[in-house]
């Protein structure tokens, strides 16, 4: 038969509840400390891995940079070309009278040899045309041509006159 001896003075004895709590706290200490060590080691390993990776990529980047520096002439040409192309695009975007001129051109060619293109004034937005037609048939043919065509939004006959010596003078405002 075993006898449990407690030689501690009564003021040093602890209750069983406190004993259990202390045991739990000590266990928690061990777990937390192990966790901390794992965490710290993991952190250090990850830091080292990332640093090595960064160093390797940085040296790669430096290599490519030096390659680009050696191609500086080509880069300058690319920058210049892109700049010029953008600006040529801007210049070509400026509205030109050629567009409206191209649209009236077939009608100019069809003005008969007896008729006279008195005045043609073109700017990028509008066109004013004065034609002297010798005969009624020339005038009718021109009017039919221009009214049948769908190249212009508006054609306004602004003035119309007749002079027995020169013929019919018709002035158009075309948009």
């Amino acid at each position, binding site marked *: 038969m075993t006898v449990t001896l407690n030689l501690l003075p009564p*003021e*040093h004895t*602890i*209750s069983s509840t*406190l004993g259990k*709590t*202390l045991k739990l*706290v000590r266990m*928690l*200490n061990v777990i*937390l*400390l192990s966790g*901390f060590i794992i965490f710290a080691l993991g*952190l*250090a390993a990850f*830091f080292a891995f*990332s*640093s090595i990776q*960064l160093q390797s990529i*940085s040296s*790669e*980047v430096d290599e*490519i940079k030096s*390659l*680009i*520096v050696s*191609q500086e*002439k*080509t*880069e*300058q*040409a*690319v*920058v*210049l*070309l892109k*700049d*010029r*192309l953008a*600006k*040529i*695009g*801007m*210049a*070509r975007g*400026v*509205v*030109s*009278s*050629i567009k409206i*001129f191209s649209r009236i051109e077939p009608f*100019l*060619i069809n003005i008969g040899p007896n008729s006279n*293109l*008195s*005045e*043609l*004034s*073109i*700017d990028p937005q509008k066109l004013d045309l004065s034609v002297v037609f010798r005969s009624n048939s020339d005038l009718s043919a021109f009017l039919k041509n221009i009214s049948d065509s769908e190249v212009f939004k508006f054609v306004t006959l602004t003035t119309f006159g007749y002079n027995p010596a020169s013929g019919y003078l018709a002035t158009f405002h075309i948009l």
Partner: protein
Amino acid sequence: MFKNLSTGTKQITVAVFPLLAVIILFIIVGKFGLSKISEVRAGLAKAQKDRTILTQKTDILRTVSASVGESANAALVVLPESNPSLAVVSQIKLLALENSVLVSGIKSGPEIADKTGLLRTDISFDIIAPRDQMIAFIKATGNIAPVIVVDKIKLSENGGVERAAISVKSFWSPLPTKLPLLTTEITNLTEAEKQLITDMGSLRKPVFVIVPPSTGTGRTDPFSP
């Protein structure tokens, strides 16, 4: 100091102290370590991005290196860096000669800041020619370099003589002064840009005569007889 504490309290204190110490360490190491790691990761992400951009940049530079210089020179003729009035006038005269058009009264205006952001000068001139040749001449002005835009055309026929007063806009722009940063992305030429380069190829370029320096035919030593 701790003499008055009971045994239970002492034992709890001794047991809890490492617990608190580990928690504090967790916080300190975690905060410091994670901040350092996030710093390195940010650097890594930037380096990876730079590497992608730079690799792409070298690929583009390698691809275009053969043709880009020629295209840049052609583009510089189409849109010069300084007032191209003389070249434009020369082109107009050549065009007139080809179309048997008589050109007179050529005037070039002052430098104007165009609303497009480019610099421009307005050039006006009169032409005399039969109607067909005049039309051919006007249409051909769209195919010359430096680039011009026909602004106004005033055509009249009087007594069998056909005249036109034409005003064109001629553009130029200073060259870019800075290269973009080394790590700035550059894009390859777009289809529209490639088409524009092809279009530029069909434009008639001005012909400049380069006068070679005269070779010394006189005495090399002016003091010797």
